[in-house]
């Protein structure tokens, strides 16, 4: 009984407490630790309390559509454009990028190629083991896009579909001695635990562009629109941009800016 009263009070407290700012992002971004690094500085400067929710790309956009998040940090340009077109967002700012790389077992050798299509073609023709996330994430969408541009449909025992997040997919690829497409930051974070190396990188098609989207405030009066705008201001502040571009895991830089801070 006491517990029940307590829970009711807690519910009440949650309703009464000042609005928090909810940022929905993808796990791959969150796992780099960048946002946890920026959070205290934003909170100190703007006085909002920031809550970061890390989910898959699809779920992050869904949070936006249902007005459960005030601002999104995502990296799936096609979906983002659709999201904006449908009127779910009022502001979209692309500000940083990193890239996808193809990784595989470090004892394998492959001929050097120029484009990502050539590499995928080599895997397809030789039926080299390849692990796909198969979870409709940004990374998976990029992979599908490449297969489509080759007019090939991967299938067979060599094509392993995990339905898991990037970290687990990398571990499975390591286990199966297989190739996979991954974002660079997740790979770098896990590199020491894997017997894998980068086989292909640097193709402009593999750029991974990150954008902030402010959710349309007309969706719900509970949305923290002011806070969302403040967050955009904070990110676009030259000081913050410099911190982002200097942010690294170990000795490797994780993100590049799309424009030079003045």
């Amino acid at each position, binding site marked *: 009984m006491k517990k029940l009263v307590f829970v009711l009070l807690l519910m009440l407290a949650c309703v009464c407490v000042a609005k928090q700012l*909810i940022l929905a992002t993808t796990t791959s971004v969150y796992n780099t630790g960048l946002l946890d690094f920026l959070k205290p500085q934003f909170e100190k400067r703007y006085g909002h309390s920031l*809550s970061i929710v890390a989910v898959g790309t699809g779920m992050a956009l869904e949070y936006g559509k249902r007005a*459960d998040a005030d601002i999104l940090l995502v990296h799936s340009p096609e979906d983002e454009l659709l999201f904006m077109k449908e009127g779910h967002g009022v502001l979209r700012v692309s500000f940083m990028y990193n890239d996808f790389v193809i990784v595989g077992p470090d004892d394998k050798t492959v001929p050097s190629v120029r484009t990502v299509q050539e590499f995928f073609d080599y895997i397809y023709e030789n039926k080299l083991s390849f692990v796909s996330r198969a979870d409709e994430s940004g990374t998976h969408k990029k992979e599908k896009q490449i297969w489509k541009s080759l007019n090939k449909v991967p299938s067979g025992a060599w094509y392993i579909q995990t339905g898991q997040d990037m970290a687990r997919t990398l571990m499975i690829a390591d286990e199966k001695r297989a190739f996979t497409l991954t974002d660079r930051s997740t790979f770098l974070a896990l590199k020491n635990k894997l017997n894998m190396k980068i086989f292909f990188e640097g193709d402009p098609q593999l750029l991974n562009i990150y954008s902030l989207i402010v959710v349309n405030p007309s969706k719900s009066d509970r949305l923290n629109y002011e806070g969302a705008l403040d967050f955009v201001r904070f990110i676009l502040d030259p000081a913050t941009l410099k911190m982002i571009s200097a942010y690294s895991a170990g000795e490797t830089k994780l993100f590049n800016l799309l424009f030079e801070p003045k």
Partner: protein
Amino acid sequence: MSEIFEISIRSIYVNCTAILISTFVAVPLALIVDFFGFRSKRFVILLFQTLTGIPPVLVGLLVYLLFSRKGPLGNLGLLFTSTAMILAQILIAIPIIFSICYSHFSKIDEKLRVIMKTLGATGFQQMMGVFRESSVGVVNAILTAFGRIVGEVGAVMIVGGNIAGRTRILTTSIVLYTNMGRFDDAIMAGAVLLMIAFSVNVLITVFSDSMEKKKWYTR
């Protein structure tokens, strides 16, 4: 270090509150269903038994849709709070506690119920008698449900959001640490989780034993 401490405290709070509330709902419910005969009784029992197999993630999704701002209870602002996580865990635990308790209650000998009646027990007292006769089964039910929710991650991830300092608990932090390659931290959190589960098991077992041994009547 202080981070894992804070996460552990939240884990204990969420799991224990959830298990307490579900116990106070599910055990009396099982007693009532056991005591009264009504037409849809078998259906209710089957329903709860089926619900024990429901994937926790699905419960999480339903609670999310309920508390989402566009959802029916969106105005409460409970999404991404520990209250929402508690609710999801309650929904996972209730069918488990109910089903295990009911199966123990229904195994009580019909003759014992007749004896309670003829010795003058009221309906409520008969229910309490059934409860006391199966107290071991009830403890078992609570511990099983606790085991299930203490290691549960899918549902709390969806409704809680694994927000640092707000809704991050041990299981969700293990997923996060694993994905970040911080395997040491993940294993550390796992060890704390096991320790909590172990302590709760010990506590409940000791408590129920001492209830059993209570002898207020000795000279």
